[in-house]
């Protein structure tokens, strides 16, 4: 890997190496730009990932966040990762495309907001991401027959099979979901050999054989091949500007030392909480007053139940079956829609969801835990609207770098509550239909979006539809903080596609 000196002025510095930072780093490096990616987390050795869910916390973002509101969101394992590869080191690799209608929800329903461009504009980038990183999926995707996936799906585990039965019973269409993993070995350009998925079930603890398509085994090696440097263990805390207010560089902490690095352009890809925290802490790019505002999640209601079979929910790719039939349910009393996916799960993650989502105790709790090997689940990802109630602000408490810890306020509004209620009823009917017993609905939210939204109007958005700050022309944002609304699809594909689009815009500006 090429390395740059501390005295060098880079064409571009990117903060964060996840879904937003990595594709952009690759694109800009390929175009001949000098690129440095500063990543707070370490570089991991995939073969050394452990399925032990306590030790596997090493791939979570562990710098403490304060969680408030009526629906305080658990972070840690639930919501963000760290390390060279970002949250995609431990993401679930479920990779549906966003629904075109979700980009125009305001036009459709008079509620939420429209994205500043149409889905069709993002589609070429989506296709490029899918073909470059490797995605498996069915030969025929019921909701979009024109689509093709390069890899066949991994084997279906019992939860996936039971969800198919439940869909059949209720007349819903179903398919193997698009998953960001490869099912046969592939020599990934610029990286090397990746093995096919072996159904180990521990995607959230890190994939040990390269089957899961992350940024660490795709975009980042491409970026490095074209001269980018990825510098791990570097926590950026200060963004420096000149008298005209333009960014001149950043200061980061590495091994206890503050190091300054200068750049022509800065891209923030630190994720919806950390990007907002950096901007708020530095008092930058906030003439709109929107930095940190409109924090969003996905409504991620789950159902769990037991069947009379030993299913061992840790085995197999966890969440294979999908239905998109609830993207616009006919009986909806809410705007937008949701996807449903089947769920297997590793035991401690599963049990802590039960711990937080039920009041069981004593013999009842013991019996529930003992039912792990018979448990099958399903979960939704539902669209979430921007709301002035939900935000990231700086708290009064400092972290070990001396920077205020972020305080995240998250409360469901009427639309989210209605969607959660709708999904709870449907999931219950589905699991009832296949005879699952001891049903438990878990009320939870996942993912994070918003806090630096894109838009056409500098009064109500932080960045342009291409991710450029309205206030500072050499500051860009490429991560899920730019989402104007959540959309129902799991976010990584949209973030990566947006990153390529932002990179192209940076190259033409």
């Amino acid at each position, binding site marked *: 890997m090429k390395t740059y000196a501390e005295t060098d002025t880079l064409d571009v510095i990117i903060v964060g190496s996840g879904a937003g930072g990595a594709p952009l780093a690759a694109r800009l490096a390929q175009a001949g730009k000098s690129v440095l990616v500063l990543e707070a987390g370490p570089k991991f050795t995939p*073969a*050394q990932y*452990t*399925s*032990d*869910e*306590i*030790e596997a*916390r090493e791939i979570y973002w*562990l*710098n*403490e*966040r*304060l*969680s*408030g509101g009526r629906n*305080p969101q*658990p*972070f*840690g*394992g639930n919501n*963000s990762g760290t390390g060279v590869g970002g949250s995609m080191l431990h993401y679930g690799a479920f990779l549906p495309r966003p629904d075109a209608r979700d980009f125009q929800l305001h036009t459709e329903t008079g509620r939420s907001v429209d994205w500043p461009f149409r889905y069709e504009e993002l589609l070429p980038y989506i296709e490029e991401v899918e073909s470059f990183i490797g995605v498996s999926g069915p030969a025929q995707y019921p909701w979009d027959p024109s689509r093709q996936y390069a890899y066949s799906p991994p*084997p279906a585990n*019992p939860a996936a*099979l039971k969800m198919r039965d439940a869909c059949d019973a209720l007349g819903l269409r179903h398919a193997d979901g698009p998953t960001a993993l490869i099912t046969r070995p592939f020599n990934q350009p610029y990286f090397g050999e990746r*093995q096919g*998925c*072996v*159904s*180990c*079930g*521990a995607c959230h603890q890190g994939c*040990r054989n390269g089957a899961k398509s992350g940024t660490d085994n795709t975009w980042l090696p491409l970026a490095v091949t074209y001269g980018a440097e990825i510098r791990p263990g570097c926590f950026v805390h200060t963004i420096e500007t000149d008298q005209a207010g333009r960014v001149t560089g950043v200061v980061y902490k590495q091994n206890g030392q503050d190091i300054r690095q200068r750049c022509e352009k800065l891209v923030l890809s630190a994720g919806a909480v950390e990007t907002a925290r950096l901007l708020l802490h530095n008092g930058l790019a906030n003439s709109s007053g929107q930095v940190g505002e409109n924090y969003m999640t996905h409504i991620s209601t789950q159902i769990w139940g037991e069947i009379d*079979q*030993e299913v*061992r929910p*840790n*085995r*197999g790719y966890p969440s294979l079956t999908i239905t998109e039939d609830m993207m616009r349910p006919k009986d909806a009393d809410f705007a937008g829609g949701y996807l449903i996916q089947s769920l297997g799960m*590793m*035991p*401690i993650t599963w*049990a*802590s969801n*039960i*711990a*937080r989502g039920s*009041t069981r*105790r*004593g*013999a009842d*709790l*013991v*019996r529930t*835990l*003992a*039912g*792990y*090997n018979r448990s099958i689940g399903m979960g939704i990802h539902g669209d979430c609207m921007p709301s002035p109630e939900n935000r990231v602000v700086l*708290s009064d408490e400092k972290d070990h770098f001396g920077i205020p810890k972020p305080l995240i306020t998250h409360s469901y509004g009427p639309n989210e509550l209605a969607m959660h209620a709708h999904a709870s009823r449907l999931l219950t009917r589905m699991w009832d239909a296949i005879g699952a017993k001891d049903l438990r609905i878990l009320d939870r939210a996942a993912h994070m979006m918003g806090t630096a939204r894109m838009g056409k109007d500098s009064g109500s958005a932080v960045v342009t539809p291409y991710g450029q700050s309205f206030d500072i022309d050499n500051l860009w944002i490429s991560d899920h903080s730019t989402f104007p609304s959540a959309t129902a699809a799991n976010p990584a594909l949209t973030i990566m596609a947006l990153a390529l689009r932002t990179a192209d815009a940076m190259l033409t500006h």
Partner: protein
Amino acid sequence: MTNSSDFPPFLASDHLSRRTHDILKERLEEDSSGTPRTLSSTAFSVLDRIVTVLLPQEEILGQQTLNLALRVDRALSGPRDGWRFAELPSDSQAWEQALLTLNDLSTSQFERPFSLLEDSAVAAFLDAMGEGKVGLDTPNRLNPSQMQKWALDLRADVIECFLADPRVQDRLGMSANLNGGDERFQGFETVQANERKDFEPATKISSAA
């Protein structure tokens, strides 16, 4: 103390990676008789009493139960999981204050320390905490709304510490850690229901079968 009889056979499997093996083995050998590191002795005695009612271990582990309260105490002074409820003080403070809140309430309502309460009284506290009905509006104690949040952390931490132990995993027949060795990363060749492979532990307690 461990003896060979409680050394789960799956630890010798080549479906377990060396690193995971070492993590589990170290956990297995954790001293169960030490003193608390994070909590005061009063707070610890409350925790010790609560865990027996929240999660009675005998059905799963027989008489060889874990010192769960001690494990939770140790976990509290180790790396945490990256977030906390905004309403609560730092984790170690929140746990100390929550447990002392329970002790104060026990003393005022039952005229004895929490550690001497009957199971039914402890259970009633657990339920009432979950409903937001237990707490004190005094300094260094948690109010009912804070106690309700903390009760979730309590439940999660106790259960996590329990399931992290390889003996518990073995008794419950969990194969999650047997997802691949170093020589060969096997994964699971079968993911079908009712097809346990020999390397996977069978379930050993009746309610899990």
